[in-house]
């Protein structure tokens, strides 16, 4: 591959032309259709995209205009992106599962005249909000089914548009020459795409990225992970998410690797196995789901298989990580691991579709160390990265051989990171956005005067490894009364990684020390109770059991140890904890419907317990109103015990962010 892609091709259309020239016969894209994998080479892709661009031009798409892309990962939608870019128009991908309201907002805000959509479902959705998107003139659709009887005055099938383009190109050589000139006219500073943020905090903002910056960032990471035209990725992440556009589209264009589109969202797991990608990304939740599935199936397996599995997973836990990192391992360990590879890890990876994965990333939320280490121990080179749309994804990434479950790695090549006074992570990177679309004030808010982007996340650099650790959203980070940093979510996540702990609420902002209230996981602790002959009648009884308290105390002590290992966090160790007498429940308003803790409400509701945590009492009485599943209300009263924890020695300078 070309080490310096930016030199010979500074826009995506020019990259496509280059790829067709040097990787012409190699696969650019695959898509499973009617049960068979269809393949398009780079040459064929260029051919189709050129025809598509001509077709779009004839329909009136002009340089600088925007075009919405709505749908799942399908070749023709990616071609829509490429064709629009070829004409100098700006693609605006929108989440396929966006409800009509969100869709209308983005389409109107981005001022699209054109929309390239997947199928009837999306056409119907857009038609239903048509009056709110007055600028929209034309829709193109990929899947013809169900659309035959629609009014086609403002609706075209992509296939037909591409067909028209092919005809025009074949019939008149000047059309091809004109298109070449259009491609050459594209400038590196032109916006290449607008990605709308998901908008969990207020209205979504359109992040504008430019050709030059996108390609520079992608070139850096392609070199970082040594991606080449021989790599394969499964494009199953949402088209509108920066992750897909970066990892698959931009990196694919720069390195020339093949992007495989799954048959449908539901078949992605099977398609993964058939394609056997070499580059893979999955959010922690997906990895957890996969592992759970494997574990459930193993429970159903025969005795010998089960014993074999558990034995060799044990071997992998001992040696796998070290072998992957190239650290010294005793010969016997290597031998056992080799046998395990043959009998367990190899077949397991094959079932999961990971046999050929060379580089895998996870990001998005904190990943449990057990989960992370499991995949690494069976030989999957899973790494973490940290990034955001405004950075065009990458801010930090873990290099091979320097992998820790609780860091997100050092700054990526050419990325400049600093920690602000308030603990916020700020960065400057090659791929950083040029601004929010039509929103200069928001852009100004997100940037520092000297050109750094504010991430809104609080973090610090780990002293031992030099890696960045992200602890929480900056606005959620509090301070203890002595000024020590108190990141509630960071502490809660550490606790929640233990299967026995279902929910945790950390307290400490403007208080003397950190205390937590916990929920045990009834399934996990219940099965532990069964195995240990602990008799209980209800959640409340189990939660108050002294043996359960002992077990949880061990977990809290471990969390304290890991907190103490970081100078910045050492002051935020847990001094006291209690196990709540009832499970936090969305029906009682304690959690949001997405299972997030509602701190303010909990602080009010459990005021007597919180008071007891901080006044030194050994136990406290509480009665709370609960809503039963049938809607009836009742009152649960309990006497909740409180345990004191020993705190690990705190190193000297505490409370100062690194």
């Amino acid at each position: 591959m070309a080490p310096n892609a930016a030199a010979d091709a500074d826009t995506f259309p020019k990259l496509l032309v280059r790829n067709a020239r040097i990787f012409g016969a190699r696969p650019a894209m695959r898509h499973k259709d009617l049960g068979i994998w269809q393949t398009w080479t780079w040459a064929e892709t260029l051919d189709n995209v050129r025809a598509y661009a001509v077709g779009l031009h004839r329909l009136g798409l002009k340089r600088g205009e925007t075009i919405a892309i709505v749908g799942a990962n399908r070749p023709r939608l990616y071609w829509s992106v490429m064709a629009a870019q070829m004409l100098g128009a700006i693609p605006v991908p929108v989440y396929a599962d966006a409800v009509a309201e969100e869709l209308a907002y983005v389409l109107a805000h981005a001022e699209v005249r054109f929309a390239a959509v997947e199928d009837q479902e999306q056409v119907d959705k857009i038609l239903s909000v048509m009056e709110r998107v007055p600028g929209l003139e034309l829709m193109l659709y990929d899947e013809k089914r169900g659309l035959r009887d629609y009014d086609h005055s403002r609706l075209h099938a992509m296939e037909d548009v591409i067909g028209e383009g092919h005809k025009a190109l074949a019939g008149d050589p000047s059309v091809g020459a004109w298109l070449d000139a259009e491609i050459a006219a594209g400038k590196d500073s032109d916006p290449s795409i607008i990605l709308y943020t998901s908008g969990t905090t207020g209205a979504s903002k359109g992040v504008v990225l430019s050709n030059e910056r996108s390609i520079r960032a992608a070139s850096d990471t392609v070199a970082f992970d040594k991606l080449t035209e021989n790599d394969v990725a499964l494009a199953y992440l949402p088209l509108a998410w920066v992750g897909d556009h970066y990892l698959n589209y931009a990196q694919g264009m720069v390195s020339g690797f093949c992007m495989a589109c799954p048959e449908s969202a539901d078949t992605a797991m099977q398609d993964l196995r058939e394609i056997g990608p070499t580059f893979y990304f999955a959010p922690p939740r997906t990895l957890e789901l996969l592992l759970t599935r494997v574990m459930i199936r193993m429970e159903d397996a025969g005795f010998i298989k089960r014993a074999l599995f558990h034995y060799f997973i044990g071997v992998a836990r001992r040696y796998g990580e070290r072998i992957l990192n190239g650290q010294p391992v005793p010969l016997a360990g290597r031998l056992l691991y080799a046998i395990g590879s043959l009998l367990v890890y190899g077949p397991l990876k094959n079932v999961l579709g990971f046999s050929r994965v060379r580089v895998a990333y996870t990001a998005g939320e904190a990943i449990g160390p057990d989960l992370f280490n499991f995949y690494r121990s069976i030989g999957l080179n899973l790494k973490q990265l940290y990034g955001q749309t405004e950075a065009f994804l990458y801010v930090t990434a873990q290099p091979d051989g320097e992998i820790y479950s609780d860091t997100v790695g050092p700054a990526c090549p050419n990325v400049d990171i600093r920690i602000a006074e308030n603990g916020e992570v700020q960065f400057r990177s090659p791929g950083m956005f040029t601004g929010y679309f039509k929103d200069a004030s928001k852009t100004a808010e997100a940037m520092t005067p000297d050109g750094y982007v504010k991430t809104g996340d609080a973090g610090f650099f780990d002293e031992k490894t030099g890696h960045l650790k992200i602890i929480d959203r900056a606005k959620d980070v509090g301070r203890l009364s002595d000024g020590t940093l108190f990141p509630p979510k960071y502490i809660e996540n550490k606790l929640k990684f233990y299967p026995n702990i279902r929910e945790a609420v950390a307290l400490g902002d403007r208080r003397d020390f950190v205390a937590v209230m916990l929920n045990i996981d009834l399934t996990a602790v219940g099965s532990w109770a069964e195995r240990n002959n602990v008799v209980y009648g209800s959640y409340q009884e189990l939660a108050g059991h002294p043996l359960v308290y002992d077990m949880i105390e061990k977990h809290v002590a471990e969390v304290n140890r890991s907190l103490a290992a970081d100078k910045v966090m050492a002051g935020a160790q847990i001094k006291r904890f209690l196990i709540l007498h009832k499970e936090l429940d969305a029906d009682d308003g304690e959690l949001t419907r997405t299972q997030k803790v509602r701190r303010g409400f909990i602080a009010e509701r459990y005021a007597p317990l919180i008071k007891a945590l901080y006044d030194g009492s050994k136990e406290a009485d509480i009665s709370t109103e609960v809503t039963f599943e049938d809607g009836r209300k009742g009152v649960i009263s309990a006497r909740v015990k409180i345990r004191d924890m020993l705190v690990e020695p705190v190193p000297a300078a505490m409370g100062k962010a690194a």
Partner: protein
Amino acid sequence: MRAPGGPDVAVGDVLLAVENVSLSFGGVKAVSDVSFDIRKGEIRAIIGPNGAGKTSMLNIINGFYQPQQGRITFKGEAHSKMRPHEAATGGIARTFQNVALFRGMTALDNIMAGRTLRMRSNFFWQMLRYGPAMSEEVEHRRRVEEIIDFLKIQEIRRVPVGRLPYGLQKRVELGRALAMEPELLLLDEPMAGMNLEEKEDMSRFVLDANDYYGTTIALIEHDMGVVMDLSDRVVVLDHGIKIADGTPDEVKKNQAVIDAYLGVAH
């Protein structure tokens, strides 16, 4: 639920006519002197309270029961009785009230089984799975894959149907019936036991099958909402007798139908 703007499927000539058909089991009259027709391209519903003779009527049409009296005209050919194999080769496919699939076989194989009648190569080649049998299988498989795509069941292609939830089994069964490329598709309570979302999906597939493949559909259904939304014409049976026949709106207003469903004081 029809696509806006476009015309409905062209409803044409009579595809199947039932004339003065009666069927009794011993002394029990299941169907007596019923006549109606099904026109090409339409969705025709047969409704009625429990025991009205709906399933019997369907069984008469596809030849499973033979009526004692009356005549069935299918594609212009009159039969005093249909035979199941005549019905099948003639282009009538059906699904069942209680799913009747090969439970140990995958969804794909079940739908493939629907192609059996269209297999032309002989038993010998089939056994070897070679030569003409192979090229034929490729063609059939393509058709089956189109149906799998149509019904959006790609993810269960290789799953034995016995392991599938009920709603999906119903969908596979519809797939098998569609694989026969029938001219007339009989659906026996396609929405029975489904939740709202599954019903909506199934309705969509029935409408699309009618629109996309141009299949004429006759269905029995209990859910009145579904019937009124889907069908072009409705025939109402009660105690084996036809009490109404017409468009959903006409039928809804018919006093005899209201009485049959709500009961009247005698």
